[in-house]
């Protein structure tokens, strides 16, 4: 019942499913490492999905749609940044407001496009490599979003850990008063980090509406923004663990569908809960073993200079 073809197909699906989560959570990780908790991920994602779809549908260009989606995510993130960083409002409330605003806006933007569809983003095909058994399609048969997510992950991990920009960003997140005293523009850095988060969330939204299920439907993110937020916390704010978390979640959510298809008689309600359970347990165990790096010390604390 398990042959190479099925395993290969499962792996390819897992990579695709994990990519949306990885993109969205990676951006949020950067925002949070700089000290800002943005609960607006779901909102920025859905606006990205809507704007990306509408733009790609109108222009016929997936690239243009993707860029527009990122821009839309950035725009909404600036609304959040204006409130939470500019006016130092409560970040939780501002983030929730951003999500609610985003869901409404996206419904409005996409309302004229219900019932239409696009050609899915093309997938890579390298003769010889893509046909490799088992891992061929998973590694060499994906769309550009997948490769972009891996590139972004490596870039974020490198910049955070190895560069001066990363050091300053982390300093702002750990102790904004000290960073401010050293002359670093705390609010500007945080705003830029939040904007990066918005761009990534928009990109994740575009992955859904341009590649994964290339049509527009309201609420098509179906809570993935919240899962991305949770992944950031459970990864203890580390990019590589985030990668592990996103892929584990993707793997279990695809595998449980296959287990059901085989009719093994395991209650589907339990199987549906399994991705959440497995990811929580795995990441809690990892962070317990490493006796964890906690949250950035200034996370969620509004910064008001000279006070």
């Amino acid at each position, binding site marked *: 019942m398990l042959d190479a073809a099925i395993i290969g197909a499962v792996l390819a699906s897992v990579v695709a499913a994990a990519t949306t989560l990885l993109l969205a959570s990676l951006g949020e990780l950067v925002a949070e490492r700089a000290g800002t908790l943005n609960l607006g991920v779901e909102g920025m994602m859905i606006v990205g999905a809507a704007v990306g779809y509408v733009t790609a549908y109108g222009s016929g260009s997936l690239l243009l749609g993707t860029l527009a989606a990122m821009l839309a995510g950035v725009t909404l993130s600036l609304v959040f940044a204006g409130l939470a960083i500019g006016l130092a409002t409560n970040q939780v409330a501002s983030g929730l407001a951003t999500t609610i605003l985003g869901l409404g806006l996206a419904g409005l933007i996409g309302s004229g496009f219900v019932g*239409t569809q696009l050609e899915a983003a093309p997938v890579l095909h390298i003769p010889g490599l893509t046909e490799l058994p088992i891992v061929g399609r998973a590694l060499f048969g994906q769309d550009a979003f997948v490769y972009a997510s891996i590139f972004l992950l490596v870039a974020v991990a490198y910049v955070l850990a190895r560069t001066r920009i990363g050091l300053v960003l982390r300093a702002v997140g750990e102790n904004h008063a000290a960073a401010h005293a050293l002359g670093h523009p705390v609010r500007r850095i945080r705003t830029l980090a939040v904007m990066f988060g918005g761009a990534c969330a928009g990109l994740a939204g575009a992955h859904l509406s341009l590649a994964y299920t290339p049509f527009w*439907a309201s609420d098509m993110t179906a809570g993935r923004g919240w899962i991305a937020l949770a992944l950031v916390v459970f990864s203890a704010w580390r990019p590589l663990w985030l990668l592990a978390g996103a892929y584990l979640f993707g793997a279990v959510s695809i595998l449980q569908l296959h287990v059901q298809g085989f009719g093994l008689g395991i209650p589907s309600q339990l199987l549906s809960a399994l991705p959440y359970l497995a990811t929580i347990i795995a990441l809690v165990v990892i962070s317990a073993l490493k006796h964890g790096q906690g949250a950035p010390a200034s996370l969620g604390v509004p910064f008001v200079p000279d006070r």
Partner: protein
Amino acid sequence: MRKILAMAVGLAAGLAFAGPGLPEAQAAEKLKAAWVYVGPVGDFGWSYQHDQGRKAVEKEFGDRVETTFVENVAEGPDAERVIEQLARAGNKLIFTTSFGFMEPTLKVAKRHPDVFFEHATGFKRAKNVSTYAAKFYEGRYVIGQIAARMSKTGTIGYIASFPIPEVVSGINAMMLGAQSVNPDMKIKIVWVNSWFDPAKEADAAKALIDQGADVIAQHTDSPAAMQAAEGRDVFAFGQASDMIKFGPDSQLTAIVDDWAPYYIERTKAVLDGTWTSTDTWGGMKDGEVVMAPYTNMPDEVKKMAEETQAAITSGALHPFKGPIYKQDGTLAVKEGEVLPDKAILSMNWYVKGIDDEVPGR
């Protein structure tokens, strides 16, 4: 200061609620009707079709009605709050269009005896609460027959939402239809435990196709599965709406929900003052279950489907006519008998030939 402010806000809110209710004499002319949807009206499926019905009411009665809707209402306590607000806002006729709105609807109905409620797919009624549903299983019997004729692998892939009787009876009806053509048909069932999650529905479709299913049926609300089937060159059936645009080479037909006749009839009953609590279960005969054009199939299969559809419409054929055996081999419906509506509406067992278990059983 804060207290005064709160009082002022409360007062304003009170006035806002009282406002539409005050001029009763005028309001009697214009009926306010409201719809509560479980998904977004843009789902292009279940909620979309209900909203088409609402628009039909607006078109039919023009100035005599004023309609509103609330979309994306979670099943459970949140629904009660939404329905309560609609009742307080002066709506005299409220349609709640998902199974999980059953208890909230009944609770609110008790507090507003002068408001008429209509609950879709439920089974509990009250003096001012009617229930209505459509016999979608009639359509599922037809698509079962088509699937059996069109499948090469002999395996149907079925994307299911929640293990409630409506969904279980749909699976059984499809399987009975398939078995009437090919007794050896197999079915693989995947529950996504959601009415609306396009990416997950697509994942489920792909998983089923990877496992050898070459005809996909769904009981979820988005066109994602149809799109996935089109991308993988297998056949599929649309759900709730005609999804041919998403599967021009894949869609064999779609079971379309047409709520317009019922909504118009019930709105008219309120306007005429003849509304009573009823239980309506319309099917093909009543125009509530409509089959989208039969496409992508040979003429002989199309002919078979049309004949079956005609037989069900005329009452000559009933999908749940005996003999029907349960999975364990026990006889569920005797030869020559028909499963009563009540048993269909509370169905929680699979028919023989389904190699799976009803979740939670």
